[in-house]
């Protein structure tokens, strides 16, 4: 690695922070919205269940890049609005995270036995109270470990934001490469940084998994983007 690259290190680290922030934001939106979609999927009302299923299948069956292109180039034309690269990237990542997280959340909700619901109801708890005090904590045990996987996936997917020009880690690598006259090192540096961040998160996830000692490991669609 040449000396030039070392002087770019602060830039890389700042960009890495943006990448972490972007994917964290998308994950949080995905967790909240995914919770609602999961509730809709377990609802007793058929139309709601179907609608939620369609949403999940749709966003898990099309590439994030397609959503990203549409959010960034399509929405401004259709609605005569301005959309920043950051907003478009967050939107696309969050939609995908919502679809994935809803499946994780659903597994969490379904892992809690019916008896728990009934017991809570017969103790006079409202739906919100049941969720908060009984089902929520139990579901969390199942939801937490796969969520780490979703976060790592989202972090990798956030590299797509560079395609529409948002200057996160990947775009920074490409820009540095341009300004240093091409070469191997800046892109290799990208790979190393992403690896260190994600591997760190995976390790932390492993700790979580052992701590919560969850037997059922949810198999998520792998080969991320």
């Amino acid at each position, binding site marked *: 690695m040449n000396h030039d690259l070392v002087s770019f290190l602060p830039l890389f680290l700042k960009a890495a922070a943006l990448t972490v922030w972007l994917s964290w934001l998308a994950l949080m939106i995905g967790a909240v919205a995914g919770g609602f979609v999961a509730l809709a999927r377990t609802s007793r009302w058929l139309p709601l269940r179907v609608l939620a299923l369609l949403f999940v299948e749709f966003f898990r069956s099309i*590439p994030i*890049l397609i959503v990203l292109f549409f959010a960034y*180039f*399509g929405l401004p034309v259709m609605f005569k609005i301005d959309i920043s690269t950051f907003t478009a990237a967050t939107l696309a990542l969050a939609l995908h995270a919502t679809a994935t997280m809803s499946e994780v959340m659903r597994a969490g909700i379904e892992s809690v036995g019916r008896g728990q619901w009934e017991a809570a109801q017969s103790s006079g708890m409202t739906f919100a109270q049941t969720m908060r005090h009984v089902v929520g904590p139990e579901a969390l045990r199942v939801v937490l470990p796969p969520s780490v996987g979703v976060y790592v996936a989202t972090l990798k997917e956030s590299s797509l934001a560079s395609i529409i020009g948002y200057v996160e880690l990947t775009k920074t690598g490409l820009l540095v490469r341009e300004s240093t006259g091409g070469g191997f090192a800046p892109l*290799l540096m990208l*790979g190393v940084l992403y*690896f260190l961040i994600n591997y760190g998160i995976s390790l932390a996830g492993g700790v979580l998994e052992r701590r919560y000692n969850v037997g059922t490991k949810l198999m998520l669609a*792998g*080969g991320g*983007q």
Partner: protein
Amino acid sequence: MHYTLQFRSIREYLPLLWDAAQTTLNLSVLAIILSVIIGCGLAIMRRSQSRLARILAIAYIEVMRNTPLLVILYIVYFALPAMGLRFSSFTAALIGLTLNSAGYMAEIIRAGLVAIAHGQFEAARAQGFNPAQTYRHIILPQVFRVIYAPLGNQVIAVILASSLASAVAVEDVASWMQTVGSTSFRFFETFLVAAGVYLVLCQAVNLMRLAIGRMLFKDNGVRR
């Protein structure tokens, strides 16, 4: 906000879509086949007696699973030429996609191998099977049953991930959407059409998986 759907203006681009869809399909199918082969090798390496082979396989898998595919594609397409290795867009995309998917395939196949009780190997050995025969007649049929569902997930993941090939100038469906959208300004229509192509491909894989699964194992039509 009234926007009228107008597929008429993108009709002339549909022949291009046919080519693009074929590119997406070719790329995905080739990457899936190659990554299964490499994945098998890695999975066997991970169970090898040699410590070095195990470490190499683990390192490869971890690197591939923790690095964005886009970065891998950029390295293959932009950085390797600096070392004298120059590939066409399609080849570069295929290499990147294969290298990435092989990491996941290896883990899926390993999980399948791990699920086979050790007694099976010993019983085969006791029956006089050599290692090749053991794998072919005893182990692989059982492994296939275990990995069938996650393999399907990975196939779909590769189809979706192949869209990133557009970032290294492969003219696939994602690239079609971007080109046609920005020349016709009918972004919503191109979005619907492109999304439709991927949706059809993925759901076709899902249906095939269900049908083949039902045929082979009676019950295994496990969805994602």
